[in-house]
C-alpha cells in the first residue's frame, strides 16, 4: 500500500539504534548550515556526506529513490525554474527564444536544486530510521515535552496512516452508489470535495472513539510513567558530532571556495 513509503525501514542498522533526539539534533545542525548560505558548494558537501552515510540507513539507493522520487522531481523543477528566472550573469550557455540560460543562472539553479535535496534528506533519514513510538518516548522523556501532546500526536500519526485505506474504501463505496469516472470535470471536482468531506467526517468519528478508548485507560492524568526508558549511548554522541561536523564542514568549504553567500547580507 502507498502509505508504506512513510513507515520506518528499521532493519537494525546503525542509525536505527540511535536516540531520536540525537538524530534530530544532527538534522537541525545541518539544516541551519544550509539555511544561512545560498550556494552550491555547501549544498554539495552536505549532500555528498548524506549519501556517504546511506549504509547506516540499511536502505539501497534504489529503495531510497523509490520513496523520495517526488522530491527529486521537485528539486529538478526548482533548479530549472531558478536557472530560467535568476539574474542572467556570466557567459550565455543557451539562448533559444524566451529560454536564456547563463553561467550565473545555471549555477544558481544547481544551488537551489542541491539545497532542496540536501535539506530534505535529513528529515527522510529520520523518518526511515525512527519508530514513531521511540520518537514519542524520546520527546517526552528527554526533551520533556508535555506527554498529552506527544502521545496525542503519536496516536494521530497512527490514524493518519489509516486515512489512505479509508479514502480507498470511501471511493469504492461511492462508486457503488453511482458516482464514478464517467462524469464531467465539474462533477468530478464536486465528487472529490464530497469524498474529502466524507473522509473528514469518518476521521473525526474515529478519532473521537480512540480518544474515548484512551481516556478509559486512564490517559490524561497528571503524572505518568514510561514503560520504555529513552536512553543516550555513545552512538548518540557520535551522531550529534557527525551532524555538527557536516554543518561546519559545509560552511568552511563554502567560505574557502569563495561561494559563501550569507542569507542576510
Amino acid at each position: 500500500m502507498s502509505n508504506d513509503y512513510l513507515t520506518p525501514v528499521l532493519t537494525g542498522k546503525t542509525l536505527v539504534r540511535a536516540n531520536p533526539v540525537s538524530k534530530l539534533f544532527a538534522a537541525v545542525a545541518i539544516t541551519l548550515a544550509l539555511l544561512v548560505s545560498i550556494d552550491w558548494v555547501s549544498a554539495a558537501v552536505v549532500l555528498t556526506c548524506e549519501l556517504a552515510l546511506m549504509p547506516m540507513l540499511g536502505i539501497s539507493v534504489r529503495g531510497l529513490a523509490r520513496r523520495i522520487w517526488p522530491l527529486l522531481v521537485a528539486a529538478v523543477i526548482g533548479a530549472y525554474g531558478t536557472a530560467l528566472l535568476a539574474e542572467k550573469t556570466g557567459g550565455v550557455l543557451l539562448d533559444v527564444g524566451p529560454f536564456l540560460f547563463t553561467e550565473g543562472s545555471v549555477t544558481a539553479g544547481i544551488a537551489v536544486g542541491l539545497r532542496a535535496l540536501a535539506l530534505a534528506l535529513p528529515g527522510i533519514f529520520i523518518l526511515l530510521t525512527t519508530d514513531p513510538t521511540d520518537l514519542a518516548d524520546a520527546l517526552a522523556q528527554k526533551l520533556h515535552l508535555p506527554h498529552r501532546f506527544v502521545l496525542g500526536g503519536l496516536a494521530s500519526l497512527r490514524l493518519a496512516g489509516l486515512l489512505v485505506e479509508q479514502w480507498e474504501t470511501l471511493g469504492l463505496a461511492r462508486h457503488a452508489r453511482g458516482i464514478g469516472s464517467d462524469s464531467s470535470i465539474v462533477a468530478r471536482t464536486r465528487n472529490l470535495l464530497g469524498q474529502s468531506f466524507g473522509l473528514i467526517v469518518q476521521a473525526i468519528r474515529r478519532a473521537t472513539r480512540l480518544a474515548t478508548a484512551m481516556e478509559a485507560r486512564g490517559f490524561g492524568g497528571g503524572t505518568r510513567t514510561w514503560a520504555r526508558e529513552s536512553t543516550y549511548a555513545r552512538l548518540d554522541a557520535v551522531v550529534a558530532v557527525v551532524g555538527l561536523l557536516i554543518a561546519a564542514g559545509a560552511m568552511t568549504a563554502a567560505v574557502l571556495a569563495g561561494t559563501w553567500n550569507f542569507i542576510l547580507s
Partner: protein
Amino acid sequence: MTPAHAPAPGAVHVRARGWGWRHAGRRAFAARRLDLDIQAGERVLLLGASGAGKSTVLHGLAGVLGSSDEGEQEGELLLDDAAPAAARGRAGLVLQDPETQVVLARVGDEVAFAAENLAVPRDEIWQRVGRALDDVGLDLPLDHPTTALSGGQKQRLALAAVLAMEPGLLLLDEPTANLDPDGVLEVRDAVVRVLERTGATLVVVEHRVAVWADVVDRVIVLDAGGGVLADGAPAAVLGQERTRERLAAAGVWVPGWQPPVGGPLPGTGGEVLLSSRDLTVARTKRGPAAVEGLEIEVRAAEALSITGPNGAGKSTAALTLGGLLRPRSGRLDASEALAGTAGADPFRWRSSQLVQRIGTVFQEPEHQFLTATVTEELEFGPRRVGGGYDPRRTADIAERLRLTHLLEANPFTLSGGEKRRLSVATMLATAPRILILDEPTFGQDAGTWAELVTLLRELIHDGVAVLSVTHDTEYIAELGGATLRIADGAGRLVAQ
C-alpha cells in the same frame, strides 16, 4: 443479592441512585431514573432495547461521559464511594469495534499504555503486561505489530490493555458483536478466565444473550423509558414468559428464540447472472492476493452466502464480484442477462451502468451516504442513471423499508437500524439484479435482523440475486441458496 463467586479484595461495588445522563444538544435523557446496586465481584449482563441507554450506563461507569459541557447528569453514580471520573483506573472499558481502540503500534506497548497512565513503576508495568497477556491467552512477542491481529485477537488485546490497570470493575460494550463465531468464543473464554483470577466485578452489554447467559450471575434489563424493567438471576429473568416477550419485543436476542421472519420461502435459482473461473482477488494492486481460484456462480432469485473467519478475504471477494475491484487474475463474466448492452467485465462498467446491475451495500452505511436528506439519498441513484426516474418507485421503496416518516431527515442522524435500511433502500432504487451485502447483520438487534431477512427473502422471490458476506448461521439458513466458505486463501462451496 450475594455474588456466587468470592469477591476479590479490589472488586468494585457499583451504586446508582436516580442516575441519569443527557448528552449535550439532545432533548431526551439517554439513561434515566436508574437505581442499582451491583455487589463487588458480581457478574452482570445488561440488556435493553436499542436506545435504552446501555452504552451510556457503561460509559458513565467508566467515567468517560465527559464534563458538564458534554452533557447533564442527575442523581448519583458511585464506584465504591467515588465518582467514576475520580476513580481513574478502577473500571476498565472494552468497546465494540476492535479496529478503533488500538492506540499503539506494538502489542507490549499497547498493554503497557494504561499502566503508564496510572503512573505504575516501570518494572511492575512489564510484570503486569506479561500477566495480562497470559490472562487473555495472547501468546505473542511484545513487539508484534498490533495491525497484524485478527478481530478476536484485537479484542483480547483490548481486554489485556485494560487489565494492566488491574481494574476492580470490567465493563464490556458489545465486545463480540463484530467477531466471527470463533472470535466470539475466544473473547468470552478470555473474559471468564480473567474473572476467575481477578474476581473483578463484570458488567457486559451484548445483544446476543446466549453468549453470556451461562457466565453471568445476574441479568438487568433497562427500560427504554428509564429505570429497570427486570432484574434477577439469568434463569429467572430469561425464563419468565412475560419478560422474554418484552425482551424479544425490544429486539434482544433471547436464548432459544429466533425472531419470526416473513416473506416467501426462497425457491431454486434461475439463470446465471455472474460467473467466475479461477478468479484471484486482491485488495490492492501490488499487495498479496486475498483469495485464489474462486469458482462462483451467482444466479437470479437465489442467495449466495460467503462465510469464513475474519480477515479471510471475504469482503475483497465480494467487492471484486461487485465490479468495484479489478480481478488479479482469472475471469469474471457477467452473463448477457445481467450485462445487457454493457460489456461482460463488471469492473469496466461505468458507475451509472453498475448501479443498474449490481448494488453493493457496505458494512458501514455512512460510507455510502451522499446527500442531506433521505429523499435525496433515494433519488440519487435513479437520477445518475438518467432517462427520467419514477418518483413512485422511490416512494414505494421508502414505504417498503419503513422510511416514509424519515424522508426529510438527515441520513447521518438516523438510528443504526434505520441507517442500515436506508443503505439497502438506496441500492434498490436503481433496481439492480444482484444485491451484495457485507456483514449486514453485524451488531443488529433482533428486530432489525428479522426486518432485513424478510426484505431479502422478498427480493429473492422477486428474482434478485442476494450475495452476502456473513457468518450469521441463522441468516444463511433463512435465505437458503448456496454457501461458499473462504479460508486460508481459497474458497470452497459447502452447501447448495
